[in-house]
């Protein structure tokens, strides 16, 4: 085959362009640390990266929702623990008042104490977390328990003003959790905590030890309601913790998947880059030296 200088030059230029193209790709990977810089670098890989990124976005939201639900549950739990303590005190007063050791005057004082504790119970049931009432269901801005008082300032009735359903928010692909609680499902589950305490107070005022004795059962029922709710809330907190842990694991796996798919193997890229550079230097040296001997050299 007849060979001319133009052909040799063309081959050199063609080869150099290919090498440079490859070098610039490696350069991009080195500078970004990523193997996939545009979608066409690896279409299925890029698609998977988008999926995993969105999945992690969702998991991030779920984790935030779990944290919100968690702090609501903590607040509810500590409130109910206080309620439980108050109930214990009320029961102690009731047991004392039921004995004949105390006079009616003592019972009047005890009644006043019980009324105070009733007010404490109501204010505990009206607890709020960052301005949102915990026990009002969806009516997060309505104080759930309203009281009416008589002229003497004693509580006459406690009525629920909240909603009967609570706000549910997503904490997993197919699971939701309550972001607030329906007070009626806790304070008036099987018994009626406020009515029992009011009746106790009235029985104390009346000095009716028999009635006081009978009310002990109702008080216990209400106390059990609170204990049961505490157990449930604790159980839900545990569930959320488990869910949180598994979501975090999943998030970690997704991050790993993204890194595996998108991240460049820096060691390999560096080696390739260096060898590519060496090759290019060689080609350029040849090109610069004009390469082929010519008859001109001997004329």
């Amino acid at each position, binding site marked *: 085959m007849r060979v001319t200088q*133009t052909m040799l030059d063309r081959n050199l230029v*063609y080869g150099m362009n290919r090498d440079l193209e490859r070098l610039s790709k490696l350069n991009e990977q080195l500078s970004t640390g990523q193997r996939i810089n545009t979608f*066409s670098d690896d279409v299925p890989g890029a698609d998977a990266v988008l*999926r995993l990124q969105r999945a992690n976005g*969702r998991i991030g939201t779920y984790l935030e929702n779990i944290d919100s639900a968690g702090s609501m549950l903590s607040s509810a739990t500590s409130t109910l623990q206080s309620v439980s303590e108050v109930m214990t005190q009320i029961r102690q007063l009731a047991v004392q008042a039921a004995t004949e050791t105390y006079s009616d005057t003592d019972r009047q004082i005890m009644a006043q104490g019980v009324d105070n504790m009733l007010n404490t119970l109501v204010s505990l049931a009206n607890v709020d977390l960052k301005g949102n009432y915990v026990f009002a269901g969806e009516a997060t801005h309505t104080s759930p328990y309203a009281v009416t008082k008589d002229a003497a300032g004693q509580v006459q009735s406690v009525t629920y003003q909240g909603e009967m359903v609570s706000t549910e928010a997503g904490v997993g692909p197919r699971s939701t959790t309550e972001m607030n609680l329906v007070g*009626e499902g806790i304070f008036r589950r099987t018994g009626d905590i406020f009515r029992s305490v009011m009746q106790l107070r009235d029985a104390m005022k009346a000095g009716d030890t028999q009635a006081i004795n009978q009310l002990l059962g109702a008080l216990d029922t209400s106390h059990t309601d609170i204990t049961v709710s505490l157990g449930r809330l604790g159980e839900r907190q545990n569930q959320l913790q488990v869910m949180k842990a598994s979501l975090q694991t999943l998030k970690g796996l997704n991050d790993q998947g993204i890194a595996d798919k*998108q991240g460049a193997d820096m060691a390999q890229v560096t080696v390739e880059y260096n060898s590519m550079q060496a090759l290019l230097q060689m080609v350029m040296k040849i090109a610069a030296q004009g390469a082929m001997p*010519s*008859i001109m050299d001997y004329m």
Partner: protein
Amino acid sequence: MAGLNIGVNALRTANQLIDMSGDNVANANTPGYHVKTALVEPVLGPSTGPVRIGLGSTVTDVIRVRNELVERALLTHTQLQEKLSQQVDILSQLESLFTEPSDGGLDARLGDFFDAVDLLASQPDDPTLREALAQKAYAVADVFHRLDDGLQSVANDLQSSTDSIVSQINALTDRIAALNSQIQAVVTSGSSAPDLKDTRDQLITELAQLMNITVYEGDYGVVSISCSGALLVDRNLSSPLRTIQEDGKTYIAAVGSIGQRIRVSEGRLAAILEMANDVVPRYQSSLDDLADSFRRAVNLVHTTGVGANGRFHALEGTNALLGMQPLSDLGYGVPAGTDERLVINVADDATGEVTQYELSLDTTLSADAFLISLRDSINANVNHVTASIDEGKLRLQADSGYAFDFALPYDPNPARPGDITAANPTSPSILDAYSGDRNLEYDVTFLNAGQIGTDPITIQIQAREPGGPVLRTLTRQIDATYAPGGAIELENGLKLTLTAGNVAAGDSFSFVAHASMDTAGVLDALGLNTLFNGLGAGLIEVADRVYQDPANLAGALRPVPGDNHRLLDMSALRSAKSVASGSATLHEYYRSMVSDVATTRSTRTVAQQNEDQLVKDLQNRRDSVSGVSVDEEMTRIMQSRTLYQGALKYISTINQLMNDLFDLV
């Protein structure tokens, strides 16, 4: 004796050969140059008797050395290579528009939007989260605009490229025709005009880069060129091209022809036309479909919700429905139906009592007629709400002390006066979302008399389609453990609560639960209580009402701060197959669009690289025949120099002979 003549001829031949080699060397790098070779022929001498001795040599012509087969293959592959390289250029541009994978792409923005919805669902009345959601919604619209602008500017660039390429083609064919006539003149005079042909063939190569051409060689070295059967150059005449626009597409036709299109299949022009006529419009319409599906799906949820400000006292449509086209053809995605339903709840602010009005709509009516019939229907049937039309926009105004919504799918206080006949009657109410997929009428009957929360009472619930037979009967028991106001589960998410009070045996009430408050989604078309407005990716935007005051973000069924049912519905859209007639989710559709661009680009790039290699090899093969080898030329010069020296020697010998002859005289 012709001796001196022979010598002079030889000197001239040697001179010409040296000049030609010099010319070859000088043009070694000239594009399109073909190495020249001289035709040297002996000069015939006069016949003197039986012998004829020649008069030396002469250069009769200078011709180009070329291999026609390789030249033709090169021309064909140049067309392919240029088409591919242009396609790859434009596809790279398109791909970079989408900026994927990144945090700023549409995929991420859509994800952020739905994440913000999920987050707001945990605290539906939190103003910060509401503001965040409004901003994320804005960001989605923003990326849609950016992509739409990007595609539009690519389309505009393609349009102006087409025009500029067509004028390049016209300039080239014009020059080729001019060169043809020069070549013809020279060839007719007996020379083969190699340099003119080189110049012309180089122009033909340039033309082949722009479009597919076929070259016919004619007499006198003149060529004719056609593209898909249409003559561009006919000997010394060129016929210029022009662009024509038909149905928004660009075609090429000859100037003066009556819209006869020329099919351009190769070259840069073919790539540009393909992109301008098919590829870019396809992505534009996909993007519009995506934006419309997103808007529609979100709005169907949003329009049937209420915001943190509760029910509406007045509401104004943002979209003007004007003209004679049926509402279902306006592009909003409203289905054509003659008995579509819209349910309006009107609430008495003082008592909270809600009345439901169900209107029948005909979406096959023209936009004008539909609007008028809707207004009249509201004014005739719905108490305490007045509808009016202002320049094609519907406006609803509630009477003072009343408010309306399209959210709650049932009457929350369904018992009418007289339904509960007992003294000191209980007041039943219905709660929570309805998850059923069709309208159901529920008849609730108390089977025995008693006091709520004290006596055991059996409640019977019959479900039926409105006007239809009973589908199923449920029974619920309550007794002394029931705390008045507590929720009794019915079905499909519905709950019943009963206040303290009495019921008589056989007391009953009924209510209808609507699967959809707006079966045709006309609220979206009217722009009433929407989250997004505007058709297509270029016009989608967050409704001003919500953007200015995120409290208007409608995430609730009931005007209760913790109600998030519509937000949960909106969150579910993320995994709903809402695009391309229900075949893909928003994310899937978008990703397949980006994948499509990227895959096309990758495959075309590979094809282009192959074609580059092929063209390079063909160019080498051509140069192997037609290229200038400096070494070869130098050798030729040496040969000619020897010839020249020989001729001089010869002349000097003849001269010697002549002198010898003179000496004799």
